[in-house]
């Protein structure tokens, strides 16, 4: 094996020989490589848009240079603080609620000893994961729209039942966190159930011999085993700390202007700046702000994790 490794690409003339020998592998990699170059790497250079007044005629690299004007403009609006705050707070809430709920559900589902019931319940819990956000938006509308079930029930209770929930701000932070949990927890719980069933039963046998209760087994065996996968998911989530959910914040709220204060996130802001205001510069600036902070966050959190618990690090 080592002899062969030495053969490939290690000597000076070897690079060309290696390429000739393995040209078919390069061909197999080509479609994805091209795709990424066009749709992922070219846009990375396209971030110059954030520093100029883009015009279609003059193109990416010929448009007038503005320096940091677009950023100044964006940070001077009150929106900058609002979208940053909302994006981060929603993500913290989503991560905390979804992770703890799915671990809890996984522990329970794993303990239920009528396995067929447990499987059926899992099938039902994961169902919302397969709904599109457009469908979720209408499901929500069925509940809290003007004629929705909530108002119908309020009427039945003798209330007026004519609240327009789509402009009622206090409801939305809770509602969005709830919807996110409803849609995502079943899926993550099943991932955890699968990793729990992968834990060797020897650990539990030893624990039982030592007289450990079920709760102690969960605390000292199951949870530590889930740690790696939880930490990896957390690091990945860190990178998207600055990424809002268009589905929740735009589609489910039906882009209602009165709700921007409590639901607007960076992504919805970028979308509106681009499509409604046609302000390419500011939209690109907000997008770059989002990407750079996300990049820093993922690098930093991974570095910290590597210090504390090397095995759980992402790379």
């Amino acid at each position: 094996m080592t002899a062969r490794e030495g053969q490939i690409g290690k000597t000076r003339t070897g690079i060309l020989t290696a390429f000739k020998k393995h040209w078919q592998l390069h061909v197999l990699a080509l479609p994805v490589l091209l795709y990424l170059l066009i749709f992922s790497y070219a846009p990375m250079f396209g971030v110059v848009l954030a520093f100029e007044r883009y015009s279609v005629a003059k193109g990416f690299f010929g448009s007038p240079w503005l320096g940091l004007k677009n950023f100044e403009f964006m940070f001077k609006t009150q929106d900058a603080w609002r979208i940053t705050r909302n994006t981060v707070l929603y993500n913290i809430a989503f991560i905390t609620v979804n992770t703890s709920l799915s671990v809890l559900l996984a522990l329970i589902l794993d303990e239920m000893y009528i396995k067929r019931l447990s499987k059926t319940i899992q099938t039902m819990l994961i169902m919302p994961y397969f709904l599109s956000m457009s469908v979720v938006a209408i499901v929500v509308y069925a509940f809290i729209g003007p004629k929705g079930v909530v108002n119908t029930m309020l009427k039945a209770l003798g209330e007026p039942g004519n609240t327009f929930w789509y402009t009622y701000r206090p409801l939305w932070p809770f509602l969005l966190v709830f919807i996110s949990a409803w849609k995502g927890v079943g899926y993550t719980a099943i991932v955890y159930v699968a990793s729990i069933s992968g834990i060797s039963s020897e650990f539990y046998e030893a624990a039982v011999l030592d007289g450990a209760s079920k709760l102690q087994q969960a605390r000292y065996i199951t949870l530590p085993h889930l740690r790696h996968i939880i930490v990896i998911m957390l690091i990945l989530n860190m990178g998207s700390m600055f990424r809002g959910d268009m589905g929740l914040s735009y589609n489910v709220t039906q882009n209602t202007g009165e709700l921007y204060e409590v639901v607007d996130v960076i992504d919805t802001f970028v979308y509106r700046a681009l499509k409604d205001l046609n302000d390419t510069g500011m939209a690109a600036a907000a997008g770059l702000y989002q990407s750079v902070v996300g990049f820093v966050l993922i690098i930093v959190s991974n570095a910290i994790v590597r210090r504390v618990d090397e095995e759980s690090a992402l790379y």
Partner: protein
Amino acid sequence: MAADSTETSSFDRINRIKPLTNMIFSVVMSVVAVLTVVPVALVFIISITSSLSLTMRGFSFVPLSTSFVAYESLFKTGSQLVDSYIITIEVTLLHTVLSVLIMTMYAYVLAQQRFGARKFYTFVVFFTMLFSGGLVPSYIINVNVLHIYDTFWILLLSGMVGTFNIIVLRTFISTTIPIELFDAAQIDGASDFKVFFRIVLPLSKAGLATIGLFVLVGKWNEWFTGMLYIDNPKLVPLQTMLTRIQQRIDFIKNNSSLASSPDGMQMLKNMPSEQTRMAIVVLTTLPVLFAYPFFQRYFIRGMTIGSVKG
């Protein structure tokens, strides 16, 4: 069934929760599971609620009377629905096949432990997970450089390569296909193409099916690309159509001056009724919901291979 009973070892039988705890868990979890599914049932119920019941009672789990008018009218006049159905099916199928094929090809390259350029290729795909140019540069490139705004191509191509899926496929290939098989093939003088198409593809069917299903469902449910790039009614995907209808109606209703103007009233009249919108939801979601239980095995397998560290 048989598998379930053999799975339970004698140790598991000793180390069980108490029957009462199990009972409580079962009841609580069953209630949670039913509550999870109920919202979707509501949409179906509204779609068959009669207009009379809707005016008298609003949306309700128990309508006063039912009617299938919404479905009838959709089948009679649903040309937009048919167009959207056709484009969504075309895009979804073609996208899934191409996406899975090129990602598997790439994953196979990443699985070649002894291939010197492997590190380069791994980095190229991994880095896209860390940093992205953002929505605007992509948008400008797609619109002004590639000129694929409002075309079939943007629908087909968007989201075709997923880092996570590639990592899962690579893990799948390197764990299910023994490396000796590659060696044997090479000694027999088989080229990389031959190994890939004759050995890897057939042996990875389960992995391909799993990823394929995820890609399929993801594409079927995609709404944002359509919102961003599509104007031509012939090309509007199902989910985008749903969101557009919903937002347009709300826009008119929220503008009281517009809603009470003759123009606004005319527009509202031409919009699909609430039952019809719910019927569209049912028709767009049924394929996915029906397919899911049959493929549950694959989905769960996919989710769990994905959790293996890359």
